[in-house]
């Protein structure tokens, strides 16, 4: 484990050195990333010009909703910083046969393929997310209890683990199919469902969709559960989703690992 931590530290250091070599580009990347986020926040502010809350009686009024948005930003910033830059390269590695060079190295292939690049500019969004979280929590009718503060970081890690597992499953599909740019689009589209409170998925179409995104691909647990714990009053019923999220995160990690190993076993090199 310490060997892998040390290697990851080397990767991170190399990425930081490269980012700092092109400092202007790094700053520009941070700014554009923040611009995207600012645009989304402006959209939510616009929505609250026309409504007091998202969904009647859901409790997602302005302050709790922005705590929800901040939670999503923090989780996504961690995923974008640690895993996405490496995952984005995998399609080309498979298509060109570059994956062979990864497989012959004396390291775990999943570790090497998912964590060899670190995008520090994505951390900017996470820092703004922390600021937005502080702003939102200061405006709640009731401040979060100490137990909510204790569980919140654990649930954030669970959210990251579920998203990481989804990336690994898509990486496995890439290895099996050879080319699947659409499946990476699929990652963005499916995580889109986690951007809003689960309560909006109601009615004859929304109910089954909510169930599928909770129990089949547990994407609705990623942001909803930690955000609900920190932004809404904790009740006895809150503990089931908490336990479910921790269980879903562990199960996702195990299943994605097995699927990835199985995909690697079926890999046929594309190189000559």
């Amino acid at each position, binding site marked *: 484990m310490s060997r892998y931590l040390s290697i990851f530290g080397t990767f991170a250091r190399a990425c930081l050195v490269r980012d700092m070599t092109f400092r202007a580009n790094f700053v520009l990347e941070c700014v554009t990333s923040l611009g995207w986020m600012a645009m989304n926040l402006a959209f939510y502010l616009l929505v609250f010009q026309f409504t007091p809350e998202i969904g009647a009686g859901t409790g997602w009024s302005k302050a709790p909703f922005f705590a929800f948005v901040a939670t999503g930003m923090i989780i996504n910033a961690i995923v974008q910083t640690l895993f996405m830059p490496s995952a984005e390269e995998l399609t080309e590695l498979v298509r060109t046969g570059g994956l062979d060079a990864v497989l012959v190295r004396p390291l775990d292939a999943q570790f090497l393929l998912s964590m060899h690049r670190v995008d520090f500019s994505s951390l900017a969004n996470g820092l703004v997310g922390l600021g937005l979280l502080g702003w939102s929590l200061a405006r709640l009718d009731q401040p979060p209890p100490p137990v909510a503060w204790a569980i919140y970081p654990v649930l954030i890690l669970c959210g990251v683990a579920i998203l990481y597992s989804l990336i690994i499953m898509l990486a496995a599909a890439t290895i099996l199919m050879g080319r699947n740019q659409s499946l990476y689009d*699929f990652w963005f589209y499916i995580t889109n469902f986690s951007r809003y409170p689960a309560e909006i998925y109601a009615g004859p179409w929304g109910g089954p969709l909510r169930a599928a995104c909770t129990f089949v691909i547990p994407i609705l647990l990623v942001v909803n559960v930690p955000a609900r714990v920190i932004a809404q009053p904790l009740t006895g019923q809150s503990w089931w989703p908490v336990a479910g999220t921790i269980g879903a995160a562990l199960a996702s990690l195990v299943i994605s690992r097995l699927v990835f190993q199985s995909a690697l076993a079926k890999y046929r090199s594309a190189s000559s």
Partner: protein
Amino acid sequence: MSQAGATGEAGSGLTAAWQPLAGLRIWLTMLTICIEERLVYRGDFILGTLMRFLPIVTQIFLWTAVFAATSRPDIAGYSRNDIVAYYLLTMVTRAFSSMPGLSSGIARSIRDGSVKKYLVQPVDYVSFLLAARVAHKLVYYLIAIFPFGLVFFLCRSYFPPLPDAATILAFLASLLMSFLLGFFMEAALGMLGFWFLEVSSLMFAYMLVQYLLSGHMFPLDMLAGIPTGIAGVSLAEVVRWLPFHYTAYFPAAVWLGKIHGPERTAALFAEAAWVIVMIVVCRLAWWRGTRRWSAFGG
């Protein structure tokens, strides 16, 4: 190792362009090649088309929840059904105006030098890209008509009754011009690569502006109440002076009857004017860019 230098000269491409039949034959050949290329990854293409509907689904649920929590019968003149119809119609509009990979592809070809083949072959680069994009769109519509048809049939209750013939014609004209506007704006953006080595951040900034100001995120009429600091001028009016809204908002608003009569006619002429401006900008960028560009290699 020998080194050969090539300086931009687009003159050879003009020979074919001035012979109408030969030019048309080349263009049709390019179109056929691009269609065949597009059909190689059919499964990937179909999956990608279906996936594009997923963000709309969340928007529909979001606005349904917003209307459920408010007592207002409409928001900026849009009922809940209008908003759903609007998002679906912007999907159609974006299917015409979005040009994924166009500007980045042009910038890459300038950076890695592959653009040089268009300078020595009797093929005009912009025409080739246009043919490739038409081919991409034709194949896309061929496949997308089924999921689009299915979704629009399922959501038919959200739409107002079929508009009159003049509105339909205006809608079709705005769609065709949105394709040309989208193409030439992105192509011009990609040609910034002649002046800057790395343009990815500029492209991302453009994408942000385009996404916000095109009306892809929400109907731009919602900005009507937001002041700009200029007396009597709202943010919605400022956005309508720019070309971006023709690539998503305008055709959808035309179909839904939000823009009609002389205002619609004037907007169509303004859109045509923007298309001409962007064609000129793109041609000028190519002309100036190829004269300052040079490549070296064996």
